[in-house]
């Protein structure tokens, strides 16, 4: 049993993968708490898909060297752009997000298809490849993930008021628009941090599944964040084992693990309120 558990981690790529899923799990789960509570799941999904053209352009310009920064730039621009469009249009918010999301994703696919050898890389962007994480990627993930967590901690009470009661935020003369945008950008950064682990297509699960599971288990926001981070990390580790022993792609394995945990918790706690 011990060998079963320890064997995978004698390989450096598995050690890096382990660190990656722990970082990604914690960061996505904490920001995911706000995504779930504020009903921003569709926004998160759209944002993840909107990164694709940025990555494609980055690849065309510079090979795979600086993809993180291209992804980050695109995600930040897309998050603020989606925010602005949804605030300043007669079209309903979900439709506006849908238009941008599908358009950007299509552009990404079109760009990638212009180069034949892209097909392998495209799968990596879409579904992630945690076992291919390099040391440099890890440092970037840790730095930006840490930045997200620190910002959320520093603005904890402001984000709490903004999410629970936007009218109170206004009567207390808080800079509501600025705080809203900071939260959007933090979501964008988290998505980029998680990009290599789960990929664009399954990103939404990292944002909403652990946070929703935690939501069923607690009635306090800080506890919900900690629980979500713990559950996400657990899913990450389980996913790594599944990936190692059964050859399932890592992103899919991690998401399946967290979905399974959600299912169990939902079944146990169905019909009751904590």
């Amino acid at each position, binding site marked *: 049993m011990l060998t079963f558990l320890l064997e995978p981690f004698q390989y450096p790529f598995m050690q890096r993968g382990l660190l990656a899923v722990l970082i990604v799990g914690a960061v996505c789960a904490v920001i995911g708490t706000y995504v779930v*509570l504020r009903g921003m799941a569709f926004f998160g999904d759209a944002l993840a898909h909107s990164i694709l053209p940025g990555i494609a352009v980055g690849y065309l310009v510079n090979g795979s060297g600086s993809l993180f920064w291209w992804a980050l730039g695109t995600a930040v621009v897309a998050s603020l752009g989606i925010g602005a469009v949804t605030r300043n249009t007669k079209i309903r918010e979900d439709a506006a997000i849908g238009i941008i999301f599908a358009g950007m994703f299509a552009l990404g696919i079109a760009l990638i298809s212009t180069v034949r050898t892209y097909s392998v890389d495209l799968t990596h962007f879409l579904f992630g490849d945690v076992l291919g994480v390099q040391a440099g990627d890890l440092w970037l993930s840790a730095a930006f993930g840490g930045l997200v967590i620190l910002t959320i901690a520093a603005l904890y*009470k402001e984000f709490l008021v903004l999410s629970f009661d936007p*009218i*109170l935020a*206004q009567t207390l003369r*808080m*800079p509501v628009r*600025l705080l809203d945008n900071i939260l959007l950008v933090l979501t964008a950064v988290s998505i980029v941090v998680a990009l290599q682990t789960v990929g664009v297509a399954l990103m939404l699960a990292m944002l909403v599944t652990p946070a929703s599971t935690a939501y069923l288990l607690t*009635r306090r926001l800080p506890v919900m964040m900690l629980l979500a981070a713990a559950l996400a990390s657990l899913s990450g580790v389980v996913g790594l084992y599944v990936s190692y022993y059964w050859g399932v792609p890592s992103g899919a394995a991690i998401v399946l693990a967290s979905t399974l945990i959600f299912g169990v918790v939902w079944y146990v706690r169905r019909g009751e309120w904590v």
Partner: protein
Amino acid sequence: MWKELERTNHLLRRVYAPHLPGTPILRLEHINLRYESGAALDDITFEVHTGERIAVIGPNGAGKSTLFKIIAGVLSPTSGEIHVYGGEPGAHVCIAYVPQRSQVDWNFPVTVADVVMMGRVGQLGLLRWPKASDWEKVYAALDVVHLRHLAKRQIRQLSGGQQQRMFIARALAQEAQLMLMDEPLTGLDVHSQEEVFAILDTLKEQNVTVLVALHDLKMAAERFDRIILLNRRIVAMGRPTEVFTTENLLEAYGGHVHLVYDEDKTLAVSDTCCGEGEEVH
């Protein structure tokens, strides 16, 4: 964006607007709010003095919530001026808006004490954590509304009356001097309504000024110093006996009102859009 940065700066440095002595707590001058569909509020002018308890009465869609949101600074009027203690309302944190219970996400993972602490966020300023003195104020506010024993409960576990009192406690923790309460009695049983009024009496002793949006004409007539009868514009304003005349009520409620006189001159009014009979003596 400039306004946002200014607000950020104010909150960081905890700069609040001064209260000019000898000025009314609230003065509205010719407030208009127009949407494409027409006027939501038309030429609203009135003054409120410290310690008054005023009922804002009017049919559904009369603009009661809109008026409160303008006073709270959540909506900007198309034209007109608002003065809070003689100054611009911009940097005041002494106005509290108590939301309708139907507007709140009761499944949000917060406790009663967490919600009341939200009232302290304005005084705390950006990037500062609550201190022991802030928690003392939170628990003092919970004592006023008799909810200390429920401080650690998730908010869904409260009854309707307790939920309403929790929001009053939040306004107290905010050290609000002007409280805007939007339909606080809707959906509460008689006992809970009485509890809310008992707390309002306590607030009056502390010179807190309260504006309450109400449906219930009888309650407005019995429990308030002054009435503002609103239907997009101010139909009448003053003591209940002056305001609740047949002409005024007909004007405010239009065709949706039934007036019935019985022998001892009781005027019975029903607002048919809400299906509830209401009486004024």
